[in-house]
């Protein structure tokens, strides 16, 4: 029996021997290193490694198949898309990772797949919507400081989702503890049906609709993506309808100002296109004092839109996701490895009966675990909602499945594994989406198939997932 249990650190041979070094041991015993520096560095390392590996593979493919389709130079396309693909991979990867944590925590302790977890994520997303929407309805949302608003929304979702997870455990899993593991699997599935349609009933009655759109339009700080420039200081030089718009730069810094035929604007919108700043209705384009409407009348001469792809708009929400995830993962790591309760949870995960003999309240530990897993799911839900803008009661299914895959990929039961699994899956998906398009016989619809093949390959070579500890059975 391979006993997989909650563990946070992979066992890597070389690192193990390094750890024995006295200096390293001293550093390691420092809690700042153990609970902050190491986990953060590890996450950065994973991000960079995952991105690097995928980039190398993508270029390798482009060497093998330089021109998958007439007039398409694969390498050039990859270069154009690279930053975008990485950012999107990281964004979705962290969401997967946070959901995967819920699967992994629960699996680590109770050894069963909590299929209802995807709905806990969904509830988090819906709660996030309810809060922001109510704030928006009361008209106060714009006055909130984002540094307070985002944590407020996320933490509320965490509390509700965490509470829900605990409730579910109490009602539907605890009575079944000790029965074959497939039994709670079925109650979990039943619950997930119940939750989806239950939430739908709630929002249908209260809102008459179940497409729940976050009021992101009213959140100033979410609107302006951070443009990253890859080709020097001048961004754009966009030419629309014979007019060239140049973004002004001073000392190599890109300003939020645009120059059109000599006049300077703080923001321009042409048709649906916003160049920096706040999207303004076409008729509202203002320059200092003069109205500039010549541009609108003509519509757009799209041929003249110049290469704008060197700009990558990093959505603020992606940054929020990454930051929140990092903070929460650091806290979780500390909680599980550095606190007494964490130790209790790990003990329960390894042997419930004996943990009870030691005076540990097994039920409480299980409840705490469910709360943690649920809270992470809830946070992921709210952040996901902020990022994609619209959620529904059905939104949990796909990310839930993906996150489950990520948890397995990383080694189910392993917290760090969930992170790595999520990032890997996000990155693989993003790169596949970005490159498969150019292969006429394939296309993005095969993304899942390829991603799945990657999963199988990894599992064949690492049967317990990327970081899963292979605890060989002692016979």
């Amino acid at each position, binding site marked *: 029996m391979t006993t997989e249990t909650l563990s946070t650190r992979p066992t890597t041979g070389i690192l193990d021997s390094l750890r024995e070094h006295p200096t390293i041991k001293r550093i390691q015993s420092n809690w700042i290193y153990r609970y902050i520096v190491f986990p953060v560095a590890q996450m950065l390392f994973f991000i960079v490694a995952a991105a690097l590996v995928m980039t190398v593979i993508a270029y390798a493919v482009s060497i093998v198949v330089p021109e998958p389709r007439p007039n398409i130079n694969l390498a050039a396309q990859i270069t154009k898309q690279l930053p975008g693909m990485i950012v999107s991979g990281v964004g979705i990867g962290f969401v997967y990772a946070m959901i995967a944590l819920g699967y992994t925590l629960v699996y680590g302790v109770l050894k069963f797949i909590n299929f209802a977890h995807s709905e806990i994520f969904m509830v988090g997303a819906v709660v996030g919507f309810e809060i922001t929407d109510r704030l928006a309805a009361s008209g106060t949302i714009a006055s909130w400081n984002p540094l307070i608003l985002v944590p407020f929304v996320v933490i509320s979702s965490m509390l509700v989702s965490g509470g829900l997870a605990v409730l579910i455990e109490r009602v539907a899993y605890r009575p079944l503890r000790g029965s074959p593991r497939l039994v709670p699997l079925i109650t979990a599935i039943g619950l997930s049906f119940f939750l989806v349609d239950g939430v739908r009933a709630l929002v249908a009655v209260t809102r008459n609709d179940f497409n729940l759109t976050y009021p992101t339009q009213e959140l100033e700080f979410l609107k302006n993506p951070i443009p990253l420039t890859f080709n020097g200081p001048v961004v754009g030089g966009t030419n629309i309808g014979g007019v060239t718009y140049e973004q002004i730069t001073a000392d190599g810094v890109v300003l939020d100002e645009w120059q059109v035929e000599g006049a300077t604007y703080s923001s321009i919108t042409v048709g649906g296109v916003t160049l920096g700043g706040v999207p303004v209705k076409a008729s509202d384009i203002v320059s200092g004092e003069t109205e500039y409407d010549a541009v609108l009348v003509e519509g757009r001469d799209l041929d003249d839109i110049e290469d704008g792809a060197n700009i990558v708009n990093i959505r603020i929400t992606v940054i929020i996701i990454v930051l929140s995830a990092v903070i929460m993962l650091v806290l979780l790591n500390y909680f599980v490895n550095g606190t007494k309760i964490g130790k209790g949870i790990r003990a329960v995960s390894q042997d419930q*009966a004996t943990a009870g003999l*030691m005076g540990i309240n097994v039920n409480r530990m299980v409840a705490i675990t469910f709360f943690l897993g649920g809270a992470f799911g809830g946070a992921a839900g709210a952040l996901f909602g902020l990022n994609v803008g619209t959620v529904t009661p059905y939104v949990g299914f796909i990310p839930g499945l993906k996150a489950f895959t990520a948890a397995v990929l990383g080694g189910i039961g392993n917290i760090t594994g969930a992170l790595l699994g999520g990032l890997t899956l996000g990155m693989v998906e993003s790169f596949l989406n970005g490159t498969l398009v150019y292969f006429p016989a394939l296309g993005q619809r095969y993304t899942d198939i390829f991603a799945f093949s990657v999963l199988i390959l990894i599992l064949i070579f690492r049967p317990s997932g990327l970081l899963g500890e292979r*605890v060989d059975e002692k016979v």
Partner: protein
Amino acid sequence: MSSAAPVLKIDNLHTYYGHIHALKGISLSVEAGEIVTLIGANGAGKSTTLRTVSGMVRPRQGAVELRGKSIVGLKAHEVAALGVGHVPEGRRIFPLLTVRENLEVGAWNVKERSQFDERMDQAFTLFPRLKERVTQKGGTLSGGEQQMLAIARALMADPEVLLLDEPSMGLAPVLVEAIFDIVQRVNKEARKTILLVEQNALMALEIAHRGYVLQTGEVVLSDSARSLMVNEDVRKVYLGEH
């Protein structure tokens, strides 16, 4: 010895596993500072008795009193909090926790830091071997070390009553001796009350004050250890004499 009320008193205990009637009305008592041993054939219900006391299984009928207070129906962690330590059959070390962490978990109910440190020291003086291995994962210890750890872990909570289930099973002869030695020391020096289950009945009776003989879920004989050791039937059936 019969000065005060018994520390642990079991009366007419019936325990079932599903429809298997494992304990059929067991009664026994353990006085403070005593080592009492349960002997009996396989499946006699020795382990079940210990499990029932520590709350791992719930009896269907009967009383278990700790210092005169009923503990029937309490959960394992509640019984533990009342000062009962149980070293379960098969050691049951947390395999992925280090030796130190195993001991820390053993001290779950210890609130004070100073007390904790003291007990840790005590454990290491009792088992110097463990001190050498504080950072090793429990699962990689050898059987004997695991057994030491299991006992030390139970002692961390400073329980008044210690339930030991076959502490010598599967151990090399050298270690068997060492373990019995330690049990005796714990009883004498730390003044623990001990309920001991052993297949190695001879050694158990050597260190125990009294003993009970169990057969298919019932107590068939109880006496002082010395008299049990010379009892014809006991010698024949449980000590392997022909």
